[in-house]
């Protein structure tokens, strides 16, 4: 088991999340015994996992399994018990599943300039939208794929070392889905960032992620993404939920 040394909170770095220094610098996040209970309903039940720096963790599970709640807990929005410990000076970029932009008279340029230091052109460059001519378009008129890329660009503009992506291809047609994951993979390698992403797409899990965490309130599977093809793993994920032990060593 990795030794964890707890640090004083650095609110200016990750808005009040628990900041730690892991002696073994392989990990950027350690979650142990995380429980979320709201109005007498258990939303997350004793979840424990670690995330290695520079890897992609897929989070899979049926609707209502607690995937978005897990993200909101990692962002310290939801009250919880157990511990969520981010590596010191972790900067998180977040892309939520839903945004309200249809009625906002705001251009892409204005959105990307909002609270960001990165130049708009550079931000668009990161997500391959430099030549799309969308800088002066309103957010509400973008295609699903363009909007997702703009949201990713916004999240990247604050120079994060972790990206949390809640179903990053929501509202995107099937043909445009894979290019977004390819892009994320490139960004991960180029900028050496860690990605946690919620998805329902098993192909994406296999192709673009390193580790898999299946949820149904509790952990139903936690291991290498490549194992998703195994019959017993499929049963663990899609069958009657059976909670697994938290961390059994490393993935």
């Amino acid at each position, binding site marked *: 088991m990795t030794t964890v040394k707890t640090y004083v909170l650095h609110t200016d770095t990750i808005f009040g999340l628990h900041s730690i220094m892991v002696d073994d610098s392989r990990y950027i996040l350690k979650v142990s015994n995380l429980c979320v209970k709201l109005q007498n309903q258990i939303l997350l039940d004793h979840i424990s996992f670690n995330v290695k720096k520079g890897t992609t963790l897929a989070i899979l599970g049926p609707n209502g399994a607690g995937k978005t709640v897990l993200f909101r807990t990692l962002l310290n*929005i939801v009250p919880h018990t157990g511990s969520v410990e981010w590596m010191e000076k972790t900067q998180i970029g977040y892309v*939520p599943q839903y945004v*309200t932009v249809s*009625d*906002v*008279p705001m*251009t892409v340029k204005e959105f990307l300039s909002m609270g960001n230091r990165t130049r708009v052109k550079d931000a668009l460059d990161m997500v391959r939208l430099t030549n799309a001519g969308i800088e002066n378009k*309103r957010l509400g008129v973008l295609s699903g794929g363009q909007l997702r890329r703009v949201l990713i660009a916004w999240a990247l503009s604050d120079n994060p070392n972790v990206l949390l992506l809640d179903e990053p291809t929501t509202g995107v047609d099937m043909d445009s889905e894979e290019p977004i994951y390819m892009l994320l993979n490139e960004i991960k390698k180029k900028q050496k960032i860690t990605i946690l992403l919620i998805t329902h797409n098993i192909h994406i899990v296999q192709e673009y992620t390193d580790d898999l965490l299946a949820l149904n309130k509790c952990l139903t599977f936690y291991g290498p993404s490549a194992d998703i093809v195994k019959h017993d793993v499929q049963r663990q994920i899609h069958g009657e939920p059976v909670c697994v032990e938290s961390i059994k060593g490393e993935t």
Partner: protein
Amino acid sequence: MPDATFFYSLFLSIFVGAAAGYLGSLMVLEKMALVGDALSHVALPGLALGMTFHFNPYLGAFAFLFITAVIIWQIQRSTKISFEALVGAMFTLALALGILMYGNELEALEEALFGDISQVTLLSAGVAALVCVVAIVLTKLIYDKLVLVMISEDLAVSRGINVARTNLLYLFLISVVVAIGIQIVGTLLVGFLVVVPAIAAKNLSARMKHYALLSAVLGITAASVGVLLWNFVSLNLPFPGPMVVFVGIAIFAFSLIINWRLKLTP
């Protein structure tokens, strides 16, 4: 020749129009236009208290507006009942309470409902104008944060924005501006100044920066031209409020036509 009170009122209407338009642009974006309109009526019991206990009725109006807004906001956060439904209930309750408190003072009730610029002095107009400027400046400081909260609350939190504190400050500022605006157009019509310049500006703006600015400019236009017309066009209106509304509606209609013809916004 108009008297000094008229010029003080005209001066005040410029600042009230700017502040109501600017702050209202956020309320319209939040799809709370009806809330903005109804919330203003909540001031009535506060005005009655001021009159009864001989303190500045606009302070009473502000106190009632802000306390009600905070109560509604807290109930909404803990029960998930919609903001609109709560404002609807509180607004009718406040009207009933206000009318009860005014009793037989029908003239005072009429002034509260439709505004009374005859009481505007150089000092009161100056102080109110200063407060409006402060409200605009403070809102400008939190404008981007509020827009981000509207786009996605989680997104805002992920950037370290304290959503509760930002919303509370906005509620405080909108309560201040509405309380000041009551003097010009009354509790029944002040919501108009918060809502209509903003929706007209939305018809004409493709950019956020233009939208907020235009909303303030149209607020100034509706309020000041309304007061001017009320003074110079003899329609036997005892209060300028209805004229402000007519000018505002004309601006809104114009914005619709312009948008329809020029397709300024998608």
